[in-house]
């Protein structure tokens, strides 16, 4: 009867690795991360390198003879070729290279923003939910205030402030991360609070209190683990949202600024109908990558949620 008993952690790992969907997601994410973080070694071009149209023979001759001044033109919207595997964009930059560099920013940004919102949201939400009474009222009114701030005008103002101080790209991205994180946690806090309000009334919390467990351990050990499924769902959904909202903010001048690339930024070229209908190679790759990333996170998140659920059968 006594089989070798697996420890809970081993069981979780085993269940996760058995989940085909989660493994597919993991594989996808690995590929995407490798592509964005190691891809720069493979591409011969730089992120902001602008390519000119190849000069025709006549032009070359004319140039050599200095007959008249030849203006070289950026090679804009050049379709995929062996030189530019995914073509060039509206500024004559190599799309594949920009995807690689843009991916870094998009992934880092989305992961850190989601991590930040989960952290703040969970802490505030669980404290409000567990302690209740005036603490709850205070925190939740604070959340309401945050929700009341009209975000778009605020973003524009913050963007122009950053413009005024002429911050450089790296700092701008950090600031963007901070701003997004600081304004997005309210939804998480609300969900966590709601969950904890109902969990708090359950007897295992009374039991923990009766055993003299400290409040912070009560929250950390008994309540938070029970909110994890909801947190995973929020996290996977928000990862995609953050990538896209970064694009909006970039468009408004707050986010990643030209000439730096981000996936959201690149996808945003579709707001030009002409580009959307005629140059598919400009926006389809960025869109596909965002789609695959979100899908990958979803698969892994789902698998993780199932693996962490002790009520799942062992087999």
């Amino acid at each position: 009867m006594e089989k070798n008993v697996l420890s809970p952690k081993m069981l979780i790992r085993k269940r996760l690795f058995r989940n085909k969907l989660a493994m597919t997601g993991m594989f996808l994410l690995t590929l995407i991360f490798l592509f964005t973080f190691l891809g720069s070694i493979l591409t011969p071009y730089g992120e902001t390198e602008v390519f000119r149209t190849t000069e025709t023979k006549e032009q070359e001759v004319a140039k050599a003879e200095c007959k008249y001044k030849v203006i070289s033109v950026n090679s804009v919207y050049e379709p995929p070729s062996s030189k530019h595997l995914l073509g060039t964009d509206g500024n004559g930059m190599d799309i594949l290279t920009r995807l690689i560099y843009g991916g870094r920013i998009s992934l880092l940004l989305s992961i850190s923003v989601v991590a930040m919102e989960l952290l703040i949201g969970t802490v505030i939400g669980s404290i409000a939910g567990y302690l209740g009474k005036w603490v709850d009222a205070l925190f939740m009114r604070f959340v309401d205030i945050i929700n009341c701030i009209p975000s778009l005008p605020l973003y524009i103002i913050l963007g122009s402030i950053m413009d005024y101080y002429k911050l450089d790209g790296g700092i701008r991205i950090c600031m963007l991360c901070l701003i997004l994180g600081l304004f997005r946690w309210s939804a998480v806090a609300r969900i966590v609070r709601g969950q904890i309000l109902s969990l708090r009334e359950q007897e295992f919390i009374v039991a923990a209190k009766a055993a003299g467990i400290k409040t912070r351990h009560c929250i950390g050990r008994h309540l938070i683990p029970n909110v994890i499924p909801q947190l995973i769902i929020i996290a996977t959904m928000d990862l995609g949202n953050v990538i896209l909202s970064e694009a909006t903010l970039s468009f408004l001048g707050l986010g990643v600024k030209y000439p730096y690339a981000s996936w959201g930024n690149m996808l945003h070229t579709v707001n030009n109908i002409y580009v959307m209908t005629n140059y598919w190679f400009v926006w389809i790759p960025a869109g596909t990558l965002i789609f695959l990333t979100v899908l990958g996170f979803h698969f892994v998140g789902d698998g993780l949620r199932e693996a962490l659920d002790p009520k799942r059968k062992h087999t």
Partner: protein
Amino acid sequence: MSFRKKNSRSAYLTVMKDPDNIVEFENVHTYFFTDSGMVKAMNGISFDIPKGKIVGIVGESGCGKTVTALSLFQLLDRSEGQTIKGQIRINMESHAVNVINAPAHVMQKLRGKQMSMIFQEPATSLNPVFRIGCQMDEVIKLHHPKMYKKERKNRTLEMLELVGITNKEEVYKMYPHELSGGMCQRIMLAIALVCHPRIIVADEPTTALDVTTQAQILDLLLELKNKLNITILLITHDLGVIAQIADEMIVMKDGSVVEKGSVKEIFKSPQHPYTVQLMRSHAFAEKHFVKIGSFPEKKDSILEVSHLKKYFPQRGNFISPGKGIVKAVDDVSFTLKRGTTLGLVGESGCGKSTTGRTILRLLEKTDGNIFFNGQDISKVSAEQLRLLRTKMQIIFQDPYACLSPRLTIDEIMKEAVREHNIVPKIELDTYISAMMRACGLQESYKQRYPHEFSGGQRQRICIARALALRPEFIVCDEPVSALDISMRTQIINLLQDLQEKYHLTYLFISHDLSVVEHISDTVAIMYLGSIIEIGATEDIFRNPLHPYTKALFSAILIPDPDVKGKRIILKENILSSSLSPSGCKFQTRCIKCTEICKMKTPVMQEIEKGHMVCCHLYDGK
């Protein structure tokens, strides 16, 4: 098309073996397909339900009782459980239907109209957002679409009257939350009866109810059976219920019928060893026995509660201010000697759990004093209280709800021990193992999660957890009410063994007098927040004084069909503690109520040595 229709018709039409039967089960196999393999919930079950009889199915939880009912209704989730083999025939006078083959639209017409069901939890079986009348109306409308609205209302009111609801017009307009559990169960019964079904399946209809309410509902079922000649399939784990009202019984174990026959015969001479075992565990619950060494040498008191009050304000809002207070615990005093047990008995809502929790300061008291080991614990600081918690522990009614679902047993057990540094870190593992063994648990359980255990094992885990903190005093808040009868005996024995071994003091809260009897040295009866009778267990059981105590005693179901004790049926249910009138609190339900009871609140008086009662009947005696 027409061919197919004809074919499917003949597939579910069948003939009854005996036309006097309402339902016949023949070799029914219902299996569940889970991730961990197939579970044979019903493994070849055959029995008949004759017309106009109450047939009881008895067995421990997990034996397939409920699946039997669900198979009859074909309410099992097809992807999980399916009836694989056999026939379940229902008699429709002109023909019979085999529900296993019947298509969905036929089943829909059968359910509600030909057969209906009442469930264990009346409060959750009713839809909280609709009025009672509306919910009953809906059922009639479904099965009699041509009936006029007025006619439907008359039918509904008639049914409400039938189930013993006197203020039917009022109840018609009420919402489920405005009614007590017993009333809700009556409504459920009325809904079940509204289309004059051939059979009613009652799945543990009284398990969630108080003993006094249980007596009422059982009486009602009997009355309905005699009046309407209705057939009832009664599912229960309590042999007492079967003995009192059923005509025939079926004993189930692990998905099979182990014994069936008339109730009288089986109780007289049970054939199967399992039936004998079941009867014995019930008999234990009935046998009067005196605790060895009761009333021993003088002991110091560990807990003194004096004039404890706990009021809950009924909160209002901006527009309408609060409507007053609910006196959950109203002036309770008692003393508990070290190493003894006080049984606290009363109906649900009488404030017994609140008393337990207020003593532990899980709820803040409104007034009064609680001395634990001579220290007034209502005055200690939060940090001191946290350290004091190791000395006073609590065991809850629902062992599943009080174990964190996402922690393993090991983590659950270790947590508090580590928090209070009960043992050095190196010894922690061996200490936990020792505690688990003391409570009859295997060490290998450590890596499992709470949901992987049975109810009895979970309660053992809770006891082990409480015990690991080396407490002196444990509040047992209905620790066995959620368990099967055979488990009850084991858990109570365990508690008694541990009491002897570790010299523990218990406050044992229960709604069932028969449970309290074995474990308690003294018994206190509570009614609407006050103790109305207190005394040595022996004295109370030998000579109950208060009319309410007497009613409680008469509500105990004796598992013997020949002893149908004269039950004192209390008229009304408790409305709410906030509405208690002046004078004696029990006056509205008391059968011996006199003028003085309405005028003056009775005080505690000692009738025998140590036996106190709070009733005007004993004034001047």
